[in-house]
């Protein structure tokens, strides 16, 4: 069985490294991490991902751009926000996203408080 491919984008290197390491602890998942928007776009263009995980530090403008580009290229792509930074929520968020459980993740993309 091929592994679930996960692209992780986050601006804080230590947290990004932790998130990638934790995801890769699951033998069925394979994470690639980057903190750079252009590198993320290039990776998404070159590889097939099942899930994109947005970590901390991404500006609203970058998030809009990345979501639009990823969705244009693959309308089925699941893009979720990772909350907490390499935390006990990570496994839940990915599992819920893969099960299409909308309760599993929050996106404050349109949050009026933001």
């Amino acid at each position: 069985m091929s592994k679930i491919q996960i692209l992780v984008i986050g601006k804080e290197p230590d947290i990004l490294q932790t998130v990638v390491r934790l995801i890769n602890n699951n033998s069925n998942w394979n994470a690639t991490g980057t903190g750079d928007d252009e590198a993320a776009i290039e990776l998404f263009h070159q590889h097939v991902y099942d899930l994109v995980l947005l970590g901390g530090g991404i500006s609203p403008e970058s998030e809009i751009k990345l979501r639009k580009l990823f969705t244009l290229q693959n309308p089925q792509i699941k893009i979720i926000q990772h909350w907490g930074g390499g935390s006990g929520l990570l496994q839940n968020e990915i599992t819920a996203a893969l099960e299409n459980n909308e309760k599993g993740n929050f996106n404050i993309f349109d949050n009026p408080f933001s």
Partner: protein
Amino acid sequence: MANTILHKADTRGDANHGWLHSKHSFSFANYYDPERMHFGALRVLNDDTVAGGRGFGTHPHDNMEIISIPLEGDLEHKDSMGNVAVIQNGEIQVMSAGTGIQHSEYNKSKDSVVKFLQIWVFPNKKNVTPRYDQIPLHLKDRKNKLQQVLSPNANDAGVWIHQNAWFHLADFDKGTTVDYQFKANGNGLYIFDLKGDLKIDNQIINTRDGYGIWDTDSVKITAETNAEFLLMEVPMNIN
């Protein structure tokens, strides 16, 4: 008509790592129940017991409001902002993880356990500047009344967070009643029964049960026995 959800204590996720025994009211780590992911903006309610001298090594967080309420023993905290502190029963600690922090938490005692509640609330703003605070709480201020321990406002009682949330602690003698009035429209109330029996409107809850109620303006809470409890009012819709 109010909506409600009852989480009996013995239905919580149970993680026993030897040094750490944690009861998860909502899905966390290896405990995953798609029907128990959150209560509005309240994402994590962990009821933790940490063995003497043990604890959580340095680990990162971002974009989360993290509240710790010690119930027994002393918890030593160190973080990447240079904070070194011990929190104990009668205090409350808050961290806004924001753009990212690293921290550790250890049981200060080598011999006795530390028990504390670890509560995570989704923030209403991403990538804020990380911050830390801890304040003492006066136990007499919750005797037969609600003691506000958290709010969205820096100038209000208790600590504050980046979310439209209010927490209260209470220590009621048997028979004491309060009508809790919601602070904001669209908020729900999650009641965590720390000890004793409570009647919430017409629902009886017991020690370590959780009970959520929303789509109402007020909630009547009566102590059926001597009881201690935590009220967490949070937005139900944060999208």
